[in-house]
């Protein structure tokens, strides 16, 4: 279906070849995962398949790529629209209409399909993606998962032979992600569609895919069976790491396979006794009976009767579905979301009453887009501006940054460094004002496993050594298992669970990390815990 023969790609003004003499082919009806570090070139490979690279983005392409017998070098992406559908990283940016049904029909309109055929196709796709009840809704009112489904429907409606998706689950909660992936799985099986997905969160996709293309980052691509690639890959989901730690003979791809390979393990390892240390520290953030409403006042409360406390030196994760009110709650904690009633208190102060200068020494906030914070032209300038803004000794921010991670280059523009490095820069700017609590909103959206490990280590250091509180909202179950001491679960603007990470995560199957699912009768959450236990036993 897709054939790369001797393909090389380089962008102008870039020193690195993105792809170097790659040759492989993907068969009809295969589900293939594109895997690699951030910035390795996954998106570029994906866009090569429908011709957006190089026709839309520029770049020099040699070799031949053929999709369903057509050459993407000769044809423009628009001329491939009837065989390839693509769903970008931010589907909201690509929407053309405001109503679900119109958006889905748009692709058919441009292809010039007759209206009666069009009606039928739209109905089919609405059913296929379970969107029939949303057909007349405004797209902007839908949740992230629903929008993702609309984008997939809009790409599928033209009956393409190949569907390309760039990080389809990165903005979704675990349940919505599962929904989207099982729909893709069904399309591959029922319609013989060829699906190629670029994704960081391997634990979500690995069980569905047939083969993996590993993008090494030095230009080489490696296509192989899932088990073969995962055996040697530096990037692996927790389940595979668990199998490596336990030295299992095979690499399991799903929880079910793991249980088949290692049935005796559960009995051999006695249940983990969590060393619960009740921290009786000073309270940093307290919310009492907080209510907040939406701007259009027709919907129910955005936040309803929120009561919570966060202590010094504690890492608390805030979880919940898309649209459960997580961002509103975080913004309320820094006084940026107006609350209708209730009390918010950070170390004895009301954040809404503090002026900007006072606020930053109480609370630091890293927004969903860390770039919103940055305005310098180089890392050096950024750090100097931060020293001035925070009124600290010059060099403080830079020192903070070098403690977090290896600094790329002082002259590098903050927009040119990797996502993880940018997050680190934003975090060190926030930290240099030495706030009592650090709040992070969805910090792991574009981060690979390596960058996540660095983030986890840093957050633990901030909380456990410097005795600051960390409050983090995320969909990433594995991150929560790794880093959080306590989890607060939000649904429909209400706190429905508040307890230790172990209690909350093991209580709900959808939000359980892979290790907990694989070893259900133990209390382990992460591979690191299992590793530590094995050491102790020895």
């Amino acid at each position, binding site marked *: 279906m897709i054939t790369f023969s001797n393909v090389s790609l380089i962008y102008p003004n870039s020193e690195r070849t993105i792809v170097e003499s790659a040759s492989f082919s993907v068969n009809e009806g295969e589900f293939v995962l594109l895997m690699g570090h951030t910035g390795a070139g996954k998106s570029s490979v994906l866009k090569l398949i429908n011709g957006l690279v190089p026709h839309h983005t520029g770049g020099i392409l040699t070799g031949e790529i053929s999709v369903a017998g057509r050459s993407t070098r000769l044809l423009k992406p628009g001329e491939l629209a009837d065989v390839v559908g693509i769903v970008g990283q931010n589907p909201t940016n690509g929407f053309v209409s405001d109503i679900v049904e119109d958006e889905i029909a748009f692709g058919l309109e441009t292809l010039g399909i007759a209206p009666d055929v069009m009606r039928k196709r739209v109905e089919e796709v609405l059913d296929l993606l379970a969107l029939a009840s949303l057909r007349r809704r*405004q797209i902007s009112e839908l949740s992230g998962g629903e929008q993702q489904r609309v984008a997939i429907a*809009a790409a599928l409606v033209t009956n393409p032979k190949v569907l390309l998706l760039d990080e389809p689950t990165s903005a979704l909660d675990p349940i919505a992600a599962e929904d989207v992936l099982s729909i893709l799985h069904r399309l591959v099986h029922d319609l013989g569609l060829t699906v190629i997905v670029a994704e960081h969160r391997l634990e979500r996709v690995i069980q569905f895919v047939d083969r993996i293309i590993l993008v090494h980052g030095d230009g080489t691509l490696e296509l192989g069976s899932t088990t073969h690639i995962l055996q040697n890959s530096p990037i692996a989901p927790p389940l595979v790491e668990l199998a490596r730690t336990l030295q299992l003979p095979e690499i399991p791809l799903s929880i079910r396979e793991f249980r088949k390979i290692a049935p005796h393990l559960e009995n051999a390892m006695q249940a983990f006794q969590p060393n619960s240390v009740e921290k009786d520290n000073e309270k940093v953030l307290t919310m009492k009976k907080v209510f907040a409403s939406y701007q259009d006042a027709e919907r129910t409360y955005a936040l309803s009767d929120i009561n919570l406390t966060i202590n010094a030196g504690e890492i608390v994760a805030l979880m919940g579905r898309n649209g459960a009110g997580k961002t509103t709650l975080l913004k309320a904690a820094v006084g940026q979301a107006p609350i209708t009633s209730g009390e918010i208190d950070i170390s004895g102060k009301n954040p809404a009453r503090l002026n900007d200068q006072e606020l930053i020494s109480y609370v630091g*906030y890293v927004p969903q887009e860390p770039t919103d914070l940055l305005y310098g032209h180089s890392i050096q300038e950024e750090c100097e501006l931060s020293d001035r803004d925070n009124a600290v000794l010059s060099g403080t921010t830079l020192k903070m940054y070098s403690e977090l991670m290896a600094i790329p280059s002082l002259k590098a523009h903050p927009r040119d460094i990797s996502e993880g490095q940018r997050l680190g820069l934003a975090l060190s700017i926030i930290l240099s004002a030495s706030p009592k609590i650090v709040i992070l909103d969805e910090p792991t959206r574009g981060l690979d496993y390596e960058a996540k490990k660095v983030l986890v280590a840093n957050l633990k250091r901030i909380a456990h050594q410097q005795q600051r509180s960390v409050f983090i909202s995320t969909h990433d179950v594995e991150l929560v298992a790794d880093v959080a001491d306590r989890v607060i679960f939000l649904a429909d603007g209400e706190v429905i669970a508040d307890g230790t990470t172990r209690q909350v995560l093991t209580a709900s199957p959808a939000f359980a990390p892979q290790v907990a699912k694989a070893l259900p009768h133990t209390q382990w959450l992460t591979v690191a815990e299992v590793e530590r236990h094995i050491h102790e036993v020895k």
Partner: protein
Amino acid sequence: MAVAFTQKKSSPWSQTFDWALRFAILAFGIRMMIAVLIGVPMPGKTLFVLPQVTLPDLFVGIRVGGPVTTQRLLSGFDEAILLVALILLFATANSLSNPHSLLRILPKRFYGLGLASVISSSVAPQAARAIVRVRNARRLRGQKSRGLRLWRGIALPVLEDSLERSIDLAASLESRGYGYFPSPTRYRPERWKFNDTMAISGAIYSLLLVIAFANSTLLIPILISFFVLTPVLAS
């Protein structure tokens, strides 16, 4: 305009009406100020006298300051209202419809034009939202710079944000074959309804009446055309 003002402000483009209203008020204020300060001498009852600035001979007939007459205020007011009406009419049209829907209606040969106008008309509302977002984020960084420096800092990410959205939209249109296939069709074409006829004919009649009253010699031909037009519109 009343519809635009009262409707739910949920979509990004519908917020443009509020911005336009502010802009219109500002334009009105500036125009009235100019009417009071600068202008040619006009007859009428003198309301008050401002100190007059003597200008070089080059600007014959133009005065800065001087007596303010009712006539001068009225003519200034007329022009200011005209300006406000123009801005609000444009904003109403803009805020009641998604600029993107223009893309679906435009014929194929206007592909480039449509794309350009959609991208430019959707930049303003999106930028407005991005500005709010970035400004809030900056406050949490304790940014001290004010004025020009502050705006330079905000403009950069906002522009980048809008540019990225526009590129994404163009890529989405491109990969969905927009402008490539010979004869696009319409899914559920909008039907011409009775209400549409009423609205259009109402607009034509009132326009004709205004012309008729302004120029009485045209009254009779226009009245005749009423009788000709009505059956045409009714069919």
